[in-house]
C-alpha cells in the first residue's frame, strides 16, 4: 500500500513492522492494554502495577479467558453462546456435589486422593455432553444458536440450583482447590524452570516455522527479525515469571507452614508465589486451542465454515457435525472454567458465573473476533479478557462506583468494536 503523504520516518516504521510480519492489530491491543495499566497505575499512586495486583489480576482473568478461547470458535462459525455462565454453574455444581455428596455416598471419603480427579472429570464430561447437546440442536435441528443458548442460559442456571438446592457447597477438596489461583502455585524455582522451558519452546517454534518455509523455498524474514522476535518472546515470558515470583507469600502464612512441619522459620526467610497452576492451565488451553485453530483440519473447517458456510458444505465438510464439535469444545472449557472459578472461591456458590456470558463474549469481540464470522484469534480473546478484567479491577481500586464501572465496561465494548471496524476499513484488512 503506497502512501505518498507518509513521512519517511513513519514509512520506515511501517517497513520494520512489515519485515517482522507483526499483526498491527495485536500491537494496537497491546498498546490499549498498556495505556489502561499505566493510567490506573497513575490514578492509584502505583498500587495497580505491583506484583501483588498483577498476580491477582492474572488469577481473576483465568476463568473468563479459558471460556473466551472457546467463544472464538463459536463466533467464528457465526454462532453465539449465551449459556456459558450458566453452563459453568452447572459444571461447578456437578463437581461440588461429586466431591461433597456423590463420592462420599459411594464410600470415598473427604481427603481421598481420588476425589479431585474424579470431580474434575465429572465436570468436564458434564460440560462436553451439554455443549454437544446444544450443538446438536443448533447443527442438526437448525434452531438458531441465539435461541438455544438463550434457553440454556435459564435452563443450566437452574439445573445448577436444583442440583445444590440453591445452597453454597463447600469447602471443596484441598487438591481441587490447588487450581484456584493463590492456593496452588509453582514457587519461584519451578516458575523459572517453566519460564525457561517456555522460552525454549517459543524459539523452537519460531525456528522450525522458518525452516519449513526454507525447505519449500518460500521467502523468509531476515534472521535479525526472527532473532528480535525470539528476544521479545523471551523477555515477555521471563518478565511475567519474574513479576509473579516477586509477589511474596506473607510472613505469617510462611510461619504457619513452618510450624505445621514442626520447624522454625529462619530469620529473613522469604518466598515468592510464582506462577499459579490455574495460569498454567490457561496457557495449556491457549496452546491447545491455537494448535487446533491453526494446525488441525478441525480448525481449518471452523474458519472455512465461518468464511463461507456454503463453500464449506460443498467442499465436503460436515458442517452440522462441526457445530456439535464446536459447542462441545465450548462445554469442556466451561467445565474447566467452573473448576478454576469454584476452586478460587474454595466453594460452589449459587450465583457462580453469573453474567460471565457477557464478559466472555466481550473478551472475544474486543480481542478481534468478528461477529460476521470467519475471523478471530485465541491470543486476541485472552488479551481481551485481560483488558476487561484490568478495567474492572482498576476502577474498583480507584473507587469508581459500581454502576459507573459497568457503564464504562459497556461503553468500552462498543467503542472497541467501532475502532476495530474503522481499523479494518482503513487497512483494507480482512
Amino acid at each position, binding site marked *: 500500500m503506497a502512501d505518498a503523504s507518509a513521512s519517511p520516518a513513519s514509512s520506515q516504521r511501517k517497513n520494520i513492522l512489515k519485515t517482522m510480519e507483526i499483526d498491527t492489530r495485536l500491537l494496537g491491543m497491546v498498546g490499549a492494554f498498556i495505556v489502561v495499566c499505566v493510567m490506573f497505575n497513575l490514578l492509584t499512586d502505583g498500587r495497580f502495577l505491583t506484583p501483588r495486583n498483577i498476580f491477582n489480576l492474572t488469577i481473576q482473568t483465568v476463568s473468563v479467558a479459558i471460556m473466551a478461547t472457546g467463544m472464538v470458535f463459536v463466533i467464528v462459525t457465526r454462532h453465539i453462546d449465551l449459556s456459558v455462565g450458566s453452563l459453568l454453574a452447572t459444571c461447578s455444581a456437578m463437581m461440588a456435589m461429586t466431591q461433597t455428596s456423590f463420592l462420599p455416598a459411594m464410600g470415598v471419603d473427604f481427603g481421598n486422593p481420588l476425589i479431585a480427579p474424579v470431580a474434575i472429570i465429572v465436570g468436564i464430561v458434564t460440560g462436553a455432553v451439554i455443549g454437544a447437546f446444544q450443538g446438536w440442536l443448533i447443527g442438526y435441528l437448525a434452531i438458531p444458536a441465539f435461541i438455544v443458548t438463550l434457553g440454556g442460559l435459564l435452563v443450566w442456571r437452574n439445573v445448577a440450583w436444583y442440583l445444590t438446592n440453591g445452597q453454597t457447597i463447600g469447602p471443596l477438596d484441598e487438591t481441587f482447590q490447588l487450581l484456584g489461583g493463590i492456593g496452588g502455585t509453582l514457587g519461584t524455582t519451578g516458575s523459572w524452570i517453566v519460564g525457561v522451558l517456555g522460552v525454549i519452546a517459543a524459539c523452537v517454534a519460531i525456528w522450525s516455522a522458518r525452516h519449513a518455509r526454507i525447505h519449500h523455498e518460500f521467502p523468509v524474514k531476515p534472521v535479525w527479525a526472527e532473532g528480535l522476535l525470539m528476544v521479545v518472546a523471551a523477555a515477555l515470558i521471563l518478565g511475567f515469571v519474574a513479576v509473579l515470583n516477586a509477589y511474596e507469600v506473607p510472613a505469617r502464612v510462611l510461619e504457619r507452614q513452618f510450624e505445621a512441619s514442626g520447624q522454625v522459620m529462619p530469620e529473613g526467610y522469604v518466598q515468592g508465589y510464582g506462577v499459579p497452576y490455574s495460569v498454567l492451565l490457561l496457557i495449556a488451553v491457549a496452546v491447545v486451542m491455537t494448535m487446533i485453530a491453526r*494446525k488441525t483440519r478441525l480448525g*481449518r473447517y471452523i474458519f472455512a465454515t465461518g*468464511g463461507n458456510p*456454503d*463453500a*464449506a458444505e460443498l*467442499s*465436503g465438510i460436515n458442517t452440522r457435525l462441526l457445530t456439535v464439535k464446536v459447542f462441545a469444545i465450548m462445554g469442556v472449557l466451561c467445565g474447566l472454567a467452573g473448576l478454576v472459578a469454584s476452586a478460587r472461591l474454595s466453594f460452589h456458590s449459587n450465583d457462580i458465573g453469573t453474567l460471565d456470558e457477557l464478559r466472555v463474549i466481550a473478551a472475544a469481540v474486543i480481542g478481534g473476533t468478528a461477529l460476521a464470522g470467519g475471523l478471530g484469534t485465541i491470543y486476541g480473546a485472552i488479551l481481551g479478557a485481560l483488558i476487561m478484567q484490568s478495567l474492572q479491577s482498576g476502577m474498583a481500586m480507584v473507587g469508581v462506583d459500581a454502576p459507573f464501572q459497568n457503564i464504562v465496561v459497556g461503553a468500552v465494548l462498543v467503542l472497541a468494536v467501532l475502532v476495530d471496524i474503522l481499523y479494518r476499513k482503513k487497512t483494507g484488512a480482512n
Partner: protein
Amino acid sequence: MIDRSGTPLVELRDISIAFGGVKAVDHVSVDLYPGEVVGLLGHNGAGKSTLIKCLSGAYRQDTGDVFVNGEKANIANPRDARDYNIETIYQTLALADNLDAASNLFLGRELTTSFGFVDDAAMEAETRKIMGRLNPNFRKFGSPVKALSGGQRQSVAIARAVYFQAKILIMDEPTAALGPQETQMVAELIQELKKDGLGIFLIDHDVHQVKELCDRAAVMKNGELVGVVDVDDVTTDDLLAMIIAGKRPEHLAA
C-alpha cells in the same frame, strides 16, 4: 471422434427437481462419455446449474437416477460425489473468502504431516505448482482470496477442480470472469484433460466457445431439455434458435 459405443461415464436419467412450485429441472436426461465435453446451454434460470448440482451432490433430485460407469450412483452429498471422482467448479466459485488460495484448494482434503497436523507449507508448494500452470501471473499466495480479483478467484476454483485428478469434471461458467489470455488457457486445459480421458460438463453462455470446445451440446429451456446435438451438425445460429425459441433445428428434427 468420440467413441460412444461403450457405457457412458455419466448418465443422468430423467432427473427432476422442484423448488416449491418451480420446476427447476423437468425430466432431463443427458449422458457423457470418457474424453468428451458436453456443453450445457440455456437462458438464465433454465436449470443448468441445478441439473449439475444433482451430480455434484449439492442437491438431491426429486426423481430420476444418476449412473456412473453404468452403475447407479447414490450421491447424497458433495463428499459422495468426490468419492466418485466428480469435481465441480461452481458458478459461485464456493471459496471461503477468509482463507488463502492453498487452504481453499485443499479444503476438505488437507495435506497433513506425520503428526496429523495440516501441512500448510506443502499445500502452498503444491498450489504454487498448479497455479504456475494455470495462471502464471498469480502471486497472491499469502492473502485471503477475498483480496483477489474475480478472475484470480476463478483460477483458484479451477485449480481446485483439476488438482485432484477428477474423472468427471463439472465446469459452471468457468471463464465468466477471465480475461482473453486466461480464457485461452482454460480452453487449452480442457483439451488437455479431454485427451486424458476425462468427461467434462461445460456450462457456458458463449455459443462460439461451445462449438469450439464441446463435442455435443445439450440445450435447456425452462427446466426442460430441448435437445442434445452434435456441435458439428449445427451452426451457432441453430444453437441460438434452440436456446431462445426452444426448437430443434429442422434438418435434425427426424
